[in-house]
């Protein structure tokens, strides 16, 4: 039941971001400091401190939003808190020093909604982010949590629910983009055997490096996912729910446990929910963090206690999934969309997005970008709007070069295609994919061959080894790429690489193998000249592949600017640098191991790289 403290009138709510990003930046300490200072001024009955899920603007954490008024404070430290509390919350003078000032501008923007990063977002899956305490079910209920579930359980038939989801145009947010309504229809039509019931699974095995969409949804609004799953269960006749989440997400796991417990205690899960006669419960299964377990058949194997390996499909999980029974499996973000569709209707939902891709998509925008963070945007938005509008452009005045979408098995889209509208089809056509929503921005200092090598080293390591194309093919591709980046590439390598990539793509058993070649194929398609320069000239245009670099010292800069400071010589581990203090230094190429330390330590830009 609602706690007593909730009935009090507070004049200010301090919404402290407690997503994983801000927490690692000490936001819990900030929260404690706020509570302490508020108490010191005797305002504990006036000012309420709330910890929320991820706000999204992770770049600027730790974050605090002051309500009412939506005043946005960022990059707080514990030291700032006494001043902030006294000035703003006691005396009513907002502290502009702690507000957000966009790069290249001078005036801070006090109100959250006026900041470009937030202004251009449309929140459906993240509708409650920053507005509720995810560990208090009442706050979720206050924002219409479980309202759609109540409607689905007491007013709608399974056929009506599925029809609504189908008409909404919702497609799987885990990556493949399969129409959700169609999947539900298949599970509804499938018969369970020996009275084994049907299973409803939430796939929260988010494994892409640099991606944190699912984690943030689970941390900010676990009830949205739970509610979606109950609605899905009612639609397909599900009898048991499993929420599969990685154990590396301790905060998400904790908040899920709290949420499930509160829902159960209130009676929103369990027997005869809301008097509808429908009973359903969900248990949490913690995965050990294997990338391949995001694949549905491998995930099911993992829940059954077997090795996390995929199996050939068909039969699809819809016919024979967990314990051989019909199983409905959707991704975290897909589930979080369901309650809104049931509540507001398919017509409203399908009015957002493009012809073939409806609604919104959550992306984690990372890499060489000013505003690193989590964003939710309508389908059809262009890459330019995300990178330059929401993302605030590339730091340090550098040039944008490419964007990798869809995680390690997505592809690299070059800068020429920056006006590409984002939907499932356009990304696939460009050789990439939607994936679960990772977006890695790269600038001119990125070497595309090295990027392909990096992503392939990830998928190669995560390959389960069950099928030959993926096990051997990714290894061979990685060897070729490593060779090229070390200056040992040959003219035949590109043909072999391309053939191998296509072979793996066509013949691998599961999605991991089928998509692992994507970074190779897209970089070959859009940045072939970079590969050729590596092989023919033994040079890396971005100077990332250090084996291909030649380091020299500009004698004039060394003597005039640096006065022969000698720092490079002292840091050189292979004694390749000659010279002494106040004299010109030089590098003996035969001894140089190309580690790049001299380049990094020279403050006078005297060390040149070619």
């Amino acid at each position: 039941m609602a706690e007593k403290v909730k009935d009090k009138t507070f004049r200010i709510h301090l919404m402290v971001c407690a997503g994983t990003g801000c927490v690692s930046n000490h936001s819990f300490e900030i929260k404690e400091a706020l509570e302490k200072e508020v108490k010191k001024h005797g305002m504990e009955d006036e000012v309420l401190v709330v910890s929320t899920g991820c706000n999204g603007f992770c770049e600027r954490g730790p974050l605090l939003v002051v309500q009412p008024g939506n005043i946005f404070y960022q990059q707080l430290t514990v030291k700032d808190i006494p001043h902030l509390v006294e000035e703003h919350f006691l005396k009513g003078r907002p502290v502009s020093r702690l507000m957000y000032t966009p790069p290249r501008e001078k005036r801070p923007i006090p109100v959250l909604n006026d900041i470009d990063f937030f202004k251009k977002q449309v929140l459906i899956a993240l509708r409650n982010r920053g507005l509720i305490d995810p560990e208090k079910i009442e706050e979720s209920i206050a924002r219409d949590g479980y309202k759609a579930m109540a409607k689905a359980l007491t007013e709608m038939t399974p056929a009506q629910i599925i029809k609504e989801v189908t008409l909404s145009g919702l497609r799987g947010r885990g990556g493949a983009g399969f129409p959700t309504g169609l999947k539900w229809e298949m599970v509804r039509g499938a018969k369970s055997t020996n009275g084994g019931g049907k299973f409803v699974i939430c796939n929260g095995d988010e494994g892409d490096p640099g991606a944190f969409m699912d984690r943030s949804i689970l941390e900010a609004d676990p009830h949205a996912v739970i509610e979606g799953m109950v609605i899905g269960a009612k639609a397909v006749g599900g009898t048991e729910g499993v929420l599969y989440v990685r154990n590396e997400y301790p905060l998400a796991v904790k908040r899920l446990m709290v949420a499930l417990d509160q829902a159960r205690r209130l009676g929103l899960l369990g027997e005869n929910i809301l008097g509808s006669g429908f009973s359903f419960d969900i248990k949490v299964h913690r995965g050990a963090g294997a990338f391949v377990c995001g694949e549905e058949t491998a995930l099911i194997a993992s829940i059954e206690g077997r090795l996390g390996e995929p199996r050939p499909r068909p039969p699809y999980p819809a016919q024979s999934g967990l314990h051989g029974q019909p199983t409905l499996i959707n991704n975290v973000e897909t589930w979080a969309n369901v309650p809104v569709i049931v509540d507001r209707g398919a017509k409203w939902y399908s009015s957002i997005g493009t012809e073939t891709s409806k609604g919104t998509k959550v992306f984690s925008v990372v890499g060489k970008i000013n505003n690193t963070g989590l964003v939710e945007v309508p389908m059809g938005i262009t890459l330019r709007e995300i990178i330059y509008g929401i993302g605030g452009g590339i730091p340090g005045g550098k040039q944008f070069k490419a964007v990798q979408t869809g995680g390690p098995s997505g592809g690299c889209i070059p800068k020429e295609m920056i006006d590409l509208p984002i939907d499932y089809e356009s990304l696939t056509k460009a050789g990439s994919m939607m994936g679960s929503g990772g977006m890695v921005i790269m600038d001119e200092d990125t070497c595309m061959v090295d990027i392909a090598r990096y992503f392939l080293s990830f998928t190669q390591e995560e390959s389960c080894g069950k099928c030959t194309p993926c096990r051997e093919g990714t290894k061979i591709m990685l060897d070729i790429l490593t060779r090229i980046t070390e200056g040992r590439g040959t003219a035949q390598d590109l043909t072999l690489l391309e053939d191998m990539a296509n072979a793996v793509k066509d013949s691998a058993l599961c999605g991991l193998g089928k998509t692992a070649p994507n970074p190779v194929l897209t970089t070959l398609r859009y940045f072939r000249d970079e590969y050729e320069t590596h092989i023919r000239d033994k040079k890396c245009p971005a100077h990332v592949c250090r084996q291909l670099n030649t380091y020299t010292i500009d004698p004039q800069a060394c003597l005039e600017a640096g006065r022969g400071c000698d720092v490079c010589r002292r840091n050189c581990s292979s004694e390749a640098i000659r010279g002494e203090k106040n004299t010109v230094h030089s590098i003996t190429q035969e001894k140089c191991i190309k580690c790049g330390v001299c380049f990094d330590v020279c403050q006078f830009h005297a060390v040149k790289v070619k």
Partner: protein
Amino acid sequence: MPKLTLEELAKIREQARKTTMLREGGEYRAKVTVHMGTCGIAAGARGVMNALLEEMDKRDVRDVLVANSGCAGLCSREPMATVELTGQAPVKYVDLNTDKMRKIFEQHVLGGKIVQEYALGIGSEKTDFTKE
């Protein structure tokens, strides 16, 4: 019997909304600003603020925005408060104490009638010259 009925769920929603409403940026009946500069606090503005919040609690009023601001400039007449009914000109009150605040809340904020004897004047200083 279900553990929770539809009606009970609706009731929890109603109750919880009273708290979360402050975060929604919705419609307010009025905005009351208590001036909390050093002069205001020394003259007892904290007590005035508490009285206001207490009244709101007691009468279960949630659609009034309570704000604070710095010194209003008229330090000799503190504690001061400004009451602004939505769509109407702001009214400044001076020389307040807790009883006066309670009376203003009842008659002006809820009743819509300005408490003439405590009021300094109607209107506010100019702050935005672009609107002229």
